[in-house]
């Protein structure tokens, strides 16, 4: 597909701890469309952060990408105006090697959840932003500094020529997150990954930052992968949504379809659990049960112990990806021909 920027195929990431193996990401298929905003949603601990770190190949020990492909379709613009496709499998690159380091911060940039601790307190924000520019461009220090001031201005930091020399701990959380965005944008990346960039901020700041990111995405014609567990945020910014549960993408569709006709029982429950102002307290419907222990994932469909619509086959058969529409896929036995699956399972 020409308009796919990143194609993740059967990605598996395991953490090899002393207590056992944690299958944090257990076979993820995900295509990220060029120029669009994809929201990745799911409960805490379902593997969102780990999966998106894999896109930069910065999964750290004891975690390891054990299998799968992350095909990055880079576009090299040529003078004629037509682009040539040079794909690279990020999962295959040496995490310490030159090739992936050239992609990081330049073609794929990332914004992290914690604005408080994501900058080092030892250096000024200017120093840390310029570092990214100097690393990936041929600009001189002077030019990098001018660019940094422009970027800080663009993300709405007041008095950028003064604040560039401030230390991160002297800025508020919102300002720091803006500086973080400026740093991520400094080399005009093709893909911007934002891992819950607003979770640690208050509601007003959160709204401002979301607006800013939407504007910048249009300006820079970036693809945005936005990780969140806030469905309100999803409704506001996303073009497409992928729902993750226990290391798997259990449903993916465009944002309207997902909110109007969610297919997977988990997605349905997730949408029901969002408080709306008109609702009474009793009507709020949290998903029953707990997220299972990461060391012993359920057999069959990972959601079956908590699923209101589970039936006998759900305990044993792992659902496959079923297509429900043009851009709507789901992993649930409700949408599969179970007798056929049982027959093939019995044969093998």
């Amino acid at each position, binding site marked *: 597909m020409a308009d796919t920027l990143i194609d993740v195929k059967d990605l598996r990431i395991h953490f090899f701890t002393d207590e056992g193996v944690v299958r944090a990401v257990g076979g993820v298929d995900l295509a990220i469309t060029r120029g669009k905003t994809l929201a990745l949603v799911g409960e805490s601990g379902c593997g969102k952060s780990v999966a998106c770190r894999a896109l930069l190949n910065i999964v750290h020990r004891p975690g390891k990408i054990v299998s799968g492909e992350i095909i990055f379709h880079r576009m090299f613009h040529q003078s004629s105006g037509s682009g040539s496709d040079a794909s690279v499998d990020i999962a295959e690159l040496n995490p310490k090697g030159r090739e992936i380091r050239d*992609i990081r*911060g330049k073609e794929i940039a990332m914004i*992290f959840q914690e604005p408080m601790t994501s900058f080092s307190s030892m250096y000024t924000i200017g120093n840390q932003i310029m570092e990214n520019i100097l690393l990936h461009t041929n600009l001189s220090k002077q030019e990098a500094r001018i660019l940094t001031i422009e970027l800080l201005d663009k993300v709405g930091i007041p008095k950028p020529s003064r604040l560039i020399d401030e230390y991160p701990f002297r800025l508020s959380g919102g300002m720091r997150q803006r500086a973080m965005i400026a740093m991520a944008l400094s080399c005009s990346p093709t893909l911007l990954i934002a891992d819950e960039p607003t979770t640690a901020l208050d509601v007003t700041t959160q709204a401002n930052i979301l607006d800013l990111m939407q504007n910048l995405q249009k300006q820079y014609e970036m693809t945005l992968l936005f990780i969140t567990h806030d469905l309100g945020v999803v409704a506001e910014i996303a073009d497409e949504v992928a729902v993750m549960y226990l290391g798997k993408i259990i449903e993916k569709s465009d944002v309207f379809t997902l909110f109007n006709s969610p297919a997977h029982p988990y997605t349905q429950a997730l949408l029901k659990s969002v408080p709306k102002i008109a609702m009474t307290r009793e009507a709020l419907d949290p998903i029953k049960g707990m997220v299972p222990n990461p060391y012993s994932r359920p057999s069959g469909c990972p959601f079956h112990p908590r699923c209101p619509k589970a039936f006998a086959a759900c305990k044993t058969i792992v659902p496959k990806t079923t297509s429900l529409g043009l851009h709507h896929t789901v992993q649930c036995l409700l949408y599969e021909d179970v007798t056929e699956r049982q027959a093939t399972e019995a044969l093998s």
Partner: protein
Amino acid sequence: MLTYILRRLLYMIPVMFIISILVFLTIQLPPGDPITKMIENQRLQQGRVFSEKDIEMMQARFGYGDPLPVQYTKWIGNIVLRGDFGYSFYKREEAGKVIADLMPLTIAISLGSFIFTWIVALPIGVLSAVRQYSIADYVFTFIGFIGLAIPNFLLALILLVLGLTTFHTSFTGLFSSAEIQQAPWSLAKVWDLLKHAWVPMVVIGTGGTAGLIRIMRANLLDELHKPYVETARAKGLSEMRLLVKYPLRHAMNPFVSGFAYLLPYLVAGEAIVAIVMNLPTEGPTLLNSLLNLDVYLGGGILLLISFMTLISTLLSDILLAWLDPRIRYGN
């Protein structure tokens, strides 16, 4: 920054005042007055008798017989105004001169062992953290614990025996002979010092090294997975540049603050090593002066060591503030 330093220097005045009172009280603690005691000692041991005039002169000089506050004022006044630390009855020399003779070597040995500690502990600590649970980590941890467990004076003794039996040289002292020690400073004397000084530096340094390796390793391990490291890695920095610029810089603080405790550690803690190795440093001299009721020498050493500890605390704080902007801004 400048006002910070000035303020710290001002704070030192009352602190030094309190310390001087404590030191003064300490040297008053032994029963009897030191001059009578000394005269008695001298008569018993060497049959030396002081004339009445000598005794009166000495008593007048230090104000014995006056009330304690007056004595204190005279003692501290002599030191502050004229640099006169009093007389060492045991060494039969001006106490100030005895202290001044020993101080440069004491400082040299402390600095030397500190640098040794740094050079060894820093890379090993970093390696153990970056390659946690590797064979190298286990080996260094093992050696480190052995180093921590062996008392330094024992290590000194072992080295002395080894020196005599296998290398046929003596590792004691800081100079080849007493003549060289007395001689004025020259290139030959410095060379001679360097040839001898590494042994005590290593011996004194190893005790601190093992501890510092553990501190460095633990600190760096804490820092290695902090979010700011991940941010820097996501920029595409190479692992080496990343390590040096971010987590290592954050883990440096305990290294720098260790600087402040260097001198008291050496003088108080390592006196035994200095005695075993016959080092001309303040530690053994302090011990001897206390044993012999040589109050002015002992008091002078205590006072100077406290003063220099204050100074090195200030130095390390300035260094910390320079290294860590959070301290500079008082966060």
